């Protein structure tokens, strides 16, 4: 029997480590430590309901488990074989308990290819991976296929780069393979940097062997014997598990010299990044690995010609690699049958924001935003109104109601003014101010710009300053025009992908939420009530009974008594001095009479 406990970021923050400890301790106390194995797995995806505990082999999915629930699970489920009903997921529609994840709305429309092993195996045990088909694809490549056939198979599958740009993976391999050289490199880009994105991290934590296997396959296909994983140092668990996976693969003869007795040599090293967003750009990544400043250089030359240490190098993202082994075992046709016309397979998204089911999901390309938000995501939190969904992180844009039925793939998202990006997806309701959202993403880009080219270094700073001005109520219509011009010029002139896409959050909100910008500028209003400078707090003198609680709560001494006593009241009503008001909301929170409102 196995107890799988989620060790992903969210669950860890909700004490999953303590849960594991409790399981181990109590099982040992009961002498069950040899019968039941407790495994800290990678992310299950359903972060909203974490921490997740799954009992195998009967596939029972416990949600929101607390450390003190462990004893009950052991006593009831493990010892007596009875499910702990109140820890099971409850279907929000029919209020019934569901014990198998595949019957949950969150999982029903998902198709897990890249995440196929996440949450199912102990990622620190190569045998578990092999028992689920791990390294079968590598064996097949080395014994049954020529390198060219491997390249052709990947090309035929239609797999495209999951890092964001969507370049056909097979074509990339083919270009690199043409530049035969004694020293070539397979590089795995594990520098996941979008705010809130944790797709790659989850794969590396939950199924590190799929990356090791895919890199070896790529090495065979392009003729490289060195593999490098560029991973950010703030992913210690992913690093730890990759290290274990690499060591185990070496031990099993799946890395190193003469792999599977075929004469093919390949090994992998890890390189640590300091967590710069721009180092996800492949040339910047390569410079960082070489010990240089992490900043992009112009392409050409492409890494396929001159990459790491000026040698031909192939750079793929973690999720891209995770798809490779299964394409080899199941065939390109199988993979190509999934997805839309130009975008094949699935895509992993980190679903976040004002949505009921926050978590990590994987859906076939071509799934609509509506399905993702309302079926998998379970709709908007608190039944509020959907306003926008941001895809593609700082390089993407905000899509609206009218895009909900867009079947998402690389082309359709780009056509709608956003982009696939690496897979961030933030859902917003009517409490989000779109100017503030644009500003948030631009703050991120300004922070993460390397500073090499002037449009990104200075232009984004100036855009941010204009947006800040608008959110403070000091914007003009000329500012909006300047924003558009700057955005267009930055897109047109910036050096790398980061700079060229950095205006997207601004442009897409200007396009889709123009009225909201104009409101900020002309009416000096923020309809979402986010931009504090545009808000005013007012006391209804008729409703105010003059108790003075608001004045006591006010940290800025902005509230004083008036001379006016409303009919039916004994004390004079209070008034707020807008010049002193810091818009903290303490007065509203304390008023029992509903006399204070925000305008």
């Amino acid at each position, binding site marked *: 029997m196995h107890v799988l406990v989620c060790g992903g970021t969210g669950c860890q923050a909700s004490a999953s480590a303590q849960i594991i400890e409790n399981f181990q301790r109590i099982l040992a106390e009961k002498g069950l430590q040899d019968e039941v194995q407790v495994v800290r797995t990678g992310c299950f995806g359903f972060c909203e309901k974490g921490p997740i505990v799954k009992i195998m082999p009967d596939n029972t999915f416990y949600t929101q488990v607390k450390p003190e629930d462990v004893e009950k699970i052991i006593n009831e489920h493990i010892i007596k074989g009875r499910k702990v009903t109140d820890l099971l997921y409850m279907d929000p529609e029919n209020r019934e308990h569901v014990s198998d994840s595949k019957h949950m709305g969150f999982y029903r429309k998902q198709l897990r290819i890249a995440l196929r092993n996440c949450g199912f195996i102990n990622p620190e045990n190569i045998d578990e991976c092999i028992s689920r088909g791990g390294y079968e694809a590598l064996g097949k490549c080395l014994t049954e296929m020529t390198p060219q056939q491997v390249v052709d198979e990947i090309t035929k599958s239609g797999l495209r780069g999951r890092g964001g740009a969507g370049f056909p993976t097979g074509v990339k391999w083919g270009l690199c393979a043409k530049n035969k050289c004694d020293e070539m490199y397979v590089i795995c880009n594990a520098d996941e940097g979008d705010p809130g994105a944790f797709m790659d991290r989850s794969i590396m934590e939950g199924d590190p062997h799929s990356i090791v296997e895919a890199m070896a396959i790529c090495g065979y296909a392009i003729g490289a014997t060195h593999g490098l994983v560029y991973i950010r140092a703030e992913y210690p668990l992913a690093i730890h598990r990759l290290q274990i996976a690499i060591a185990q693969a070496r031990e099993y003869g799946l890395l190193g010299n003469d792999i599977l007795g075929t004469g093919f040599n390949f090994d992998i090293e890890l390189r640590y990044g300091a967590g*710069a967003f721009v180092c996800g750009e492949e040339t910047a990544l390569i410079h960082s690995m070489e010990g240089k*400043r992490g*900043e992009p*250089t*112009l392409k*050409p030359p492409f890494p396929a010609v001159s990459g790491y240490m000026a040698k031909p190098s192939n750079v793929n993202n973690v999720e891209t690699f995770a798809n490779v082994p299964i394409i080899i075992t199941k065939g390109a046709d199988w993979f190509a049958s999934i997805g839309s016309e130009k975008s094949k397979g699935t895509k992993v998204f980190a679903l976040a924001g004002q949505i009921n089911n926050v978590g990590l999901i994987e859906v076939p390309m071509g799934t609509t935003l509506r399905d993702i938000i309302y079926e998998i995501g379970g709709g908007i939190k608190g039944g509020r109104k959907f306003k926008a969904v941001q895809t593609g992180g700082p390089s993407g844009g905000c899509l609206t109601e009218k895009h909900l039925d867009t079947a998402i793939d690389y082309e359709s998202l780009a056509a709608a003014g956003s982009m696939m990006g690496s897979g961030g997806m933030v859902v917003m309701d009517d409490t989000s101010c779109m100017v503030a959202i644009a500003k948030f993403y631009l703050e991120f880009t*300004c*922070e*993460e*710009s*390397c*500073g*090499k*080219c*002037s*449009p*990104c*270094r*200075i*232009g*984004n*700073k*100036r855009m941010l*300053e204009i947006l800040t001005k608008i959110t403070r109520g000091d914007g003009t219509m000329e500012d909006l025009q*300047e924003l558009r*011009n*700057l955005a267009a*010029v930055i*897109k*047109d*002139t*910036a*050096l790398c992908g980061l700079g*060229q896409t950095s205006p997207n959050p601004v442009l897409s909100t200007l396009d889709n939420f123009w009225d909201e910008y104009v409101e900020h500028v002309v009416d000096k209003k923020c309809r979402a009530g986010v931009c504090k400078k545009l808000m005013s707090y007012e006391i209804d003198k008729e409703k105010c009974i003059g108790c003075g609680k608001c004045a006591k709560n006010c940290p800025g001494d902005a509230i004083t008594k008036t001379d006016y006593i409303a009919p039916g009241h004994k004390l004079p009503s209070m008034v707020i001095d807008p010049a002193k008001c810091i818009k903290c909301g303490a007065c509203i929170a304390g008023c029992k009479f509903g006399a204070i409102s925000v305008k």
Partner: protein
Amino acid sequence: MINVTIDNKQIQVPEGTTILKAARMAGIHIPTLCYFELAGMKFENKPGGCRVCVVEVVKDFNGRPRRNLAPACATDCVEGMEVLTHSARVINARRTVVELILSDHPTDCLTCAKSGNCELQSLAQYLGIREIPFKGEQSHYRQDMSPSIVRDMDKCVMCRRCENMCNNIQTVGALSAINRGFSAVVAPAFEQDLVDSPCVMCGQCVQVCPVGALSEVDDTRNVMAAINNPKKTVIVNTAPATRVALGEEFGMPAGTIVTGQMAAALRRLGFDYVFDTDFTADLTIMEEGTELLGRIKKYMAGDKSVRLPILTSCCPGWVNFFEHNFPDMLDVPSTAKSPMQMFGAVAKNYWADKMGIKREDLVVVSIMPCLAKKYESKRKEFYKDGNPDIDYVLTTRELARLIKQFNLNLKDMPSEDYDDPLGESTGAAVIFGATGGVIEAATRTAYEVFTGKQCPKIDFTELRGMEGIRDAWVDFDGTPIHIGIAHGLSNARKLLERVREGKEQFHAIEVMACPGGCVGGAGQPYHHGNSEIIKKRTEAIYREDAGKPIRKSHENPSIIKLYKEYLGEPCGHLSHELLHTHYFDKSEHVEISE
């Protein structure tokens, strides 16, 4: 050859030609800022960072228009490409980019050291920018001043020329980009002061900086104060390379020789005596040549502990460089001081005594093509009782500014002679200003001293040229002497590493820190990447040499007299005291300031 169309002009260019170069071939001007090339000197800076040279590719390799604008400096032409360099889209983008750069620039042109020479200023002018539409935060950094260089990074435009120069051409490694985004700037590691960094003060960063972010320390006020002080006797000496470059500042073509006019102008500025560093260049040859021959003779006599090759030590940037980078070889370079420091020593001892002037009442000013000389004059070993041998160093550019301030035009100056005795010099001395010149001058003398015969030739053309590393065998009447030459510190490093590893053996090596030698020095008029200017100055140096009646240092009558009257013999006791120095290990000299 491939066919491209630029602004509707069809041209053929070799494969690998950038759009920028193709446009230049077609006579089309594309403005640039970060791009910089020193043709023929293996220096090309094209980080593609400023985005000023962007152009519209209306037809790319795939027959379709390119999505975004392309940096012309770093985009290669492809067959059938069609490019617009001045479309409305391009002009708007280019203008916006320059407005952005200006929005983070102090625009204090009125008082900026680079005003009139500033490439950003010219660019703003070219684009007709009359106001800066973006008002926002501006970058502020601590000002940093070393004895040679002022860094005012508020003005930095991140062209990275200095960084490229410092790391790739000079391999000094003092400057690199630090911080990110809006805070990104070029600085020594940890933003330490230049003096605490491995900077060797060669100043080539200043020579290539397009704006006023890097400039020389200005000593003109100090010099004027000395001249205005009636108690002081102020004398001046002029380095070989200044006389072939100063004219450029007055509109004369590169390579114009203005030796006599410079001497005349200096007198009108109020210097009491106008002398020539060439005089002590001849003296350097006597000392360094004697030292070289001494080592060779010892070596040939079987003493294998002798350190060969001898390395020249005239160039203060180079001296700094080996002190930082080759501390294990401090006993290899010649101990002879540079001509400038020899001048200071001779002037403040021999000449001051002779004239009856007290040391503290004598102010010695040097006119140099160099920024490292400012630093060199402040080295402690060149002070006596708190008084330096050389009081102030002015660059060629500073001298030009002073001359202009005095409402003088070099063109109108009569040609005047230097004063005696520290003004007499030979052709051997003037070629110190070009790469290979010091060693050629040394060869002219060493041959005759070594063999006791008259040298059959004077021009050792095998030692001249612009190649970064050169070597030649010179036949000393049956004894072959192997000579190496390097200019640019990366070349010096390569050559010295070869020597250290024992891969190659030389008797003598000349090193100059600046590309082209002193003619390409950091204190010379800005060449803005036109390497033809450096070549013209070099040619002028050799013309000046050819026109001199005496062309060998040991035949300089004033030098002969100096030894007879005062010094005794080359490398003798007094020489050692006055004309030789020693070196320090600076390899650990990296301090992090608080």
